[in-house]
């Protein structure tokens, strides 16, 4: 198919889509006129039912916990996929990065970058844990916290070298953390079943003060495991991509 034909086929399909979309829009309630009862019901009852003041987290880790489990496993699968796809292929060898240009020096990492990265590493870890452990109160949770925690390791890479990054995040350890994160979430669900309750039922004491760190039962715990899983998955993905760029070379000759 030539590029111009391809474009015309797309434009024809897009015209059809636009027509049906506009037709469909006319039957929808307008923007800001949300008709569904589900969100309103959750907003009313979630705080008293789960003792979590962040209803989004209550939905993610309790009401819709089973869906989130699936989404977490998409993340696990994607990270595993990156590891598999970026493995060392036949005809490739692994070796540490060396300077191949003899007529110029490798530019050293600037002190400004090193300083900033080092300064930020600590605070980023703290904010990451804070986010991962406050799912029940505020717009945070394991997903956001996990990404923050992974960022801390990328700052280590920026401030030092790839080998330092590898030392701080050995693949074996990252794998274990990721497995604990994903398995922990599933295990919480199984524990509920073992007690004769529905899967992922919030079986822990909910506490009395809505929004306290100790409140909302399994929501905090699941958010913590999701944080581990997300952080480990992202460190693994970044590590694999860096390894691909810096270590793996086509075998010459």
């Amino acid at each position, binding site marked *: 198919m030539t590029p111009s034909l391809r*474009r015309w086929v797309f434009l024809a399909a897009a015209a059809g889509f636009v027509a049906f979309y506009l037709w469909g829009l006319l039957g929808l309630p307008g923007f800001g006129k949300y008709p569904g009862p589900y969100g309103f019901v959750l907003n009313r009852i979630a705080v008293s039912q789960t003792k979590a003041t962040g209803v989004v987290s209550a939905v993610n880790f309790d009401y819709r916990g089973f869906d989130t489990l699936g989404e977490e496993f998409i993340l696990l699968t994607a990270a595993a996929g990156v590891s598999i796809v970026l493995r060392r292929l036949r005809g490739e060898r692994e070796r540490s990065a060396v300077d191949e240009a003899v007529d110029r020096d490798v530019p050293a990492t600037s002190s400004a970058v090193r300083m900033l990265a080092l300064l930020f590493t600590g605070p980023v870890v703290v904010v990451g844990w804070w986010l991962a452990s406050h799912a029940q109160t505020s717009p945070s949770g394991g997903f956001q916290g996990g990404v923050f925690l992974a960022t801390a390791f990328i700052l280590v890479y920026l401030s030092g070298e790839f080998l330092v990054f590898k030392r701080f995040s050995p693949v074996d350890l990252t794998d274990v953390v990721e497995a604990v994160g994903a398995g922990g979430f599933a295990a919480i669900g199984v524990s509920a079943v073992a007690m004769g309750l529905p899967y992922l039922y919030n079986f822990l004491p909910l506490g009395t003060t809505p929004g306290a760190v100790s409140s909302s039962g399994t929501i905090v715990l699941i958010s913590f495991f999701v944080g581990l899983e997300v952080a480990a998955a992202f460190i693994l993905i970044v590590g694999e991509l860096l390894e691909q760029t810096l270590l793996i070379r086509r075998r010459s000759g």
Partner: protein
Amino acid sequence: MQYFPFVVVAWILGVGLYGIVTSRHLVHLIMCLIVVQSSTYVLLLGVGYVTGAVAPYFYDIGVHTPAVDPVVQALALTDVVVEAAVTALLLAFAVQAHKRFGTLDPQELVSLKG
């Protein structure tokens, strides 16, 4: 104006798809896929919006304060993280495709057929 956010959704979806269809570079194609997926965030948040309502966090406000739908927000939240991981997987495929075929042009990749 009543349907404006939903028109924006269609527009983002449309430009993303156009980019995918006409793409001459796999990394560009993956970026276009991110644009397509971004339209789902706008759609989800647009569907759940309630005029004059606040975010569904009741830490310092009463539970009877009108708030937007928390379900679509939860969907958008997990969507963002999963998208990042899937993008990484696709980029890994692009790296290997380039190694194997020496090109990242999807239209040339079709004619090579491994």
